[in-house]
């Protein structure tokens, strides 16, 4: 928490680019409900400590500028955050200007795009910002008119009084800014929302659709250099020697430098740098094991049988449950490494001069990038500025700012402003992958088909914790044992959209389908039974880790919409899956049709409980996009290795789903008025389970390993 900075009002206005008579508001980052605002105070310096996490200005021209602090990576916060502020401000959305705020750890908290946490973190704060500003504007109007503020009302940016008096926010802003911000301003009743819950288009649409330079890749500044950085070709290799003379002699090349294991080719234009890279003579040598995919398959087998095991959860006595079981179900599931492969490859701009640095580019964790660069270059963090560009996809890759660090380091070495661009090949072979993992599930059933014991053993390769021990079925089964083993590998890994659960969820939900079959129960009925009796474990705050009632609701909704319990046409097969992640509940039903021997995935029904839907358009985009993403990667995604080197290097060998392969998708949101949770990830994890379960019904074959369309599985062509 930052609390010691002293601001002068003048600096504040300058920093905020606030022009005209403006009202500035910020609000407390402690989340205590206390509200601090920096209020216009003419030329007098406003002394004091302020903890801000978001703010807005109301301009005398009648518009409002709403600053969006979090990185926009395609998840839609640059639209939904300002919508939330404008809702409580009671403002005309058409008069809102949205501005991406730069990194500012004094004004803002958690400028991060990750974990689907932006919305739950900011919901109340954003509303308070809008509501408090509205109240100040009303008080200014009441004072001007000599009336009781309680008799004033607002309507889309205008304060009105029953006497007929009215004034726009723009007209009132200067006076309102002098009013002390009230505490505990009541928020709107959600039933009065006019903006939240509607279909609001992306605020950047015009720039995106007309090709404006809004991405880091597009950034240009007179005099900047272009660089590409060659990393070792395989994980476990390091740079042995470099001869950059031939490359440096190529047209347009300024320098060839090496640092750490990097070889940077610096030049004037991208193509010249690309060509010169081919002339770099670099030798690499082994410094660690050069692992191949075949090694990983062997390691999985070994570690499934033994190895350094962590017990992540132990409820009751599974050994006794299995000893007494009438039936035991057991199955193993495996997933490969994945590249994040955002359409915009890694890139960054840095201009490091002495003890100052200017950074510009796409990063999901700007504060972490700045702080790591400060440490790396021994520069005070306060001497570093970081401007966020719209991000051409992240999926977790840009949570790790390695490319920003190497750009800053290169700029400090060559003492010049430089934009580093990764090629697709650099991006796909450059590491920080979704870790490969293997799971073994076991369930003990009694004579009645009840699950009496549940065991999960997860083995990951640089996966950290490959299990989610506090989620379902913990609390729904009496005896539970959850174990984890991690193999340390030179291959680098990191969070990939819905980390761990992006595969674990589908595997678990496929296993529950197998359990239901063994128990002679309908898969949906069995899940409903489990949730009706569930006593979820408590988290650190003493609250249940999941809400069985919300689980039940999405299960029932998906079953209803898909016609799960109705008679189906011949050849139509349904598969069910449900999962809770990132505070959101998602149930899905995949519909596979088998006609004349040909099996195809036709449709996905999806029920979502994310509480209040902030932006209907953005929410649908995230849910449908996650389903397409989950399906594509389950079917085709795999990054394999030969002696430490990735075997897929570009989209011609790393297969992604295409437009001709998408099933129809129907999405239903549970309308319960609960505070909203995030949607960037939760619709992805269960999807592969629904598809695998439907495929089993249609073909009799369980697909347990991804990618489903791997040779020999017979699943090619179902999309």
């Amino acid at each position, binding site marked *: 928490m930052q609390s010691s900075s002293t601001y002068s009002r003048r600096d504040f206005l300058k920093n905020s680019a606030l022009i005209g008579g403006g009202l500035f508001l910020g609000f407390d980052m402690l989340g205590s409900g206390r509200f601090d605002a920096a209020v216009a105070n003419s030329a007098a310096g406003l002394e004091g400590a302020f903890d801000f996490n978001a703010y807005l200005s109301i301009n005398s021209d009648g518009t409002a500028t709403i600053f969006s602090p979090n990185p926009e*990576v*395609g*998840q839609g916060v640059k639209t939904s955050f300002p919508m939330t502020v404008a809702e409580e401000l009671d403002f005309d959305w058409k008069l809102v200007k949205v501005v991406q705020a730069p990194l500012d750890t004094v004004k803002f908290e958690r400028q991060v795009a990750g974990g689907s946490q932006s919305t739950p973190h900011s919901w109340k704060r954003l509303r308070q910002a809008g509501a408090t500003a509205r109240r100040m504007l009303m008080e200014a109007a009441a004072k001007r008119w000599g009336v009781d503020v309680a008799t004033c009302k607002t309507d889309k940016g205008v304060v009105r009084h029953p006497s007929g008096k009215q004034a726009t926010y723009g007209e009132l802003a200067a006076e309102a800014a002098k009013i002390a911000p009230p505490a505990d301003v009541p928020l709107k009743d959600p039933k009065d929302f006019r903006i939240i819950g509607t*279909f609001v*288009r*992306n605020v*950047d*649409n*015009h720039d*995106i*659709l*007309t*090709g*404006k*330079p809004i*991405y880091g*890749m*597009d950034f*240009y500044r007179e005099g900047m250099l*272009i660089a590409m950085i060659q990393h070792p070709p395989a994980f476990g290799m390091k740079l042995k020697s470099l001869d950059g003379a031939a490359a440096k002699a190529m*047209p347009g090349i300024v320098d060839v430098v090496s640092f750490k294991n990097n070889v940077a080719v610096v030049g004037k*234009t*991208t*193509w*010249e740098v690309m*060509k010169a890279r081919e002339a770099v003579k670099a030798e690499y040598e082994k410094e660690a094991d050069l692992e191949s995919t075949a090694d990983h398959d062997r390691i999985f087998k070994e570690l499934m049988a033994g190895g350094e095991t962590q017990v992540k959860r132990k409820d009751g006595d599974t050994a006794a449950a299995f000893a007494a079981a009438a039936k035991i179900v057991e199955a193993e599931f495996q997933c490969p490494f994945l590249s994040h*492969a*955002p*359409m*915009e*490859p890694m890139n960054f701009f840095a201009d490091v001069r002495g003890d100052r640095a200017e950074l510009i580019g796409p990063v999901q964790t700007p504060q972490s990038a700045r702080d790591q660069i400060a440490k790396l270059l021994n520069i005070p963090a306060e001497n570093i500025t970081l401007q966020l560009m*719209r*991000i*051409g*996809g*992240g*999926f977790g890759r840009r949570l790790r700012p390695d490319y920003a660090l190497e750009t800053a380091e290169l700029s400090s070495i060559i003492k010049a402003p430089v934009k580093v*661009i990764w*090629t*697709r090949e650099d991006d796909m072979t450059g590491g920080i992958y979704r870790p490969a993992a293997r799971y073994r599930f076991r369930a003990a059933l009694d004579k009645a088909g009840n699950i009496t014991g549940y065991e999960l053993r997860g083995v990951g390769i640089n996966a950290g914790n490959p299990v989610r021990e506090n989620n379902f079925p913990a609390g729904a089964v009496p005896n539970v044992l959850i174990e984890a083993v991690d193999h340390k590998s030179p291959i680098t890994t990191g969070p990939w959209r819905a980390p761990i659960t992006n595969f674990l969820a589908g595997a678990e939900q496929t296993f529950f389908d197998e359990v239901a079959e063994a128990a002679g129960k309908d898969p949906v009925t069995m899940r409903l039974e489990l949730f009706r009796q569930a006593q979820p474990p408590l988290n650190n705050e003493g609250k249940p880790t999941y809400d069985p009632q919300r689980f039940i609701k999405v299960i029932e909704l998906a079953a209803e919409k898909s016609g799960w319990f109705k008679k189906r046409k011949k050849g139509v097969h349904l598969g069910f899956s449900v999962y809770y992640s990132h505070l959101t509940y998602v149930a899905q039903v995949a519909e596979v049709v088998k006609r004349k021997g040909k099996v195809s995935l036709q449709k996905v029904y999806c029920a979502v409980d994310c509480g209040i839907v902030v932006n209907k*358009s953005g929410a649908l*985009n*995230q849910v*449908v*996009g*996650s*389903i*397409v*993403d989950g399906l*594509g990667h389950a079917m085709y995604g795999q990054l394999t290795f030969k002696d430490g080197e990735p075997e897929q290097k*570009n*989209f*011609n060998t790393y297969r*992604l*789903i*295409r*437009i*001709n392969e*998408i099933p129809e*998708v129907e999405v239903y949101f549970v309308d319960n008025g609960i505070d909203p949770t995030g949607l960037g990830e939760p619709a992805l994890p269960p999807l592969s389970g629904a598809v695998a379960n439907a495929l089993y019904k249609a073909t009799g074959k369980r697909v347990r390993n991804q990618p489903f369309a791997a040779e020999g599985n017979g699943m090619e062509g179902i999309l």
Partner: protein
Amino acid sequence: MATYTLRVNGRTYTTDVAPDTPLLWVLRDHLRLTGTKYACGVAACGACTVHLDGAAVRSCVMPVSAVGNAAVTTIEGLSEKGDHPVQRAWDEVDVPQCGYCQAGQIMTAAALLQRNPNPGDEEIEQAMSGNLCRCGAYHRIRDAVKLAAKKG
């Protein structure tokens, strides 16, 4: 190095580059038209799609020396005010998520509608299947192509 005179978005540009320089990098680095995107460099994703005399081509693998006198249209020149029927449809349907691939998607769609003003579902899928969208915005892309056809 060689001098090339290019007709781009109705303007004439002269540039001095190596003959094998892909049109993509001439547009981005030399003409500062960065709406055309780099994503794969091997004609596998369609993000770099531009029009050459109205036909969609992959600028990342087209050497500048092969452009000749053909008229090049990029996303910046598709319409003067961003109101081409495809652009309007993309906005109305609210297609973009991250948005990075959308310039290429739009250029492919505009070329399709130019030669086939009323494409069916399969024709749309076939024409658009060379353009990757990592965010999975394909449903809305398909809907927007249909809407653009109506707006024609």
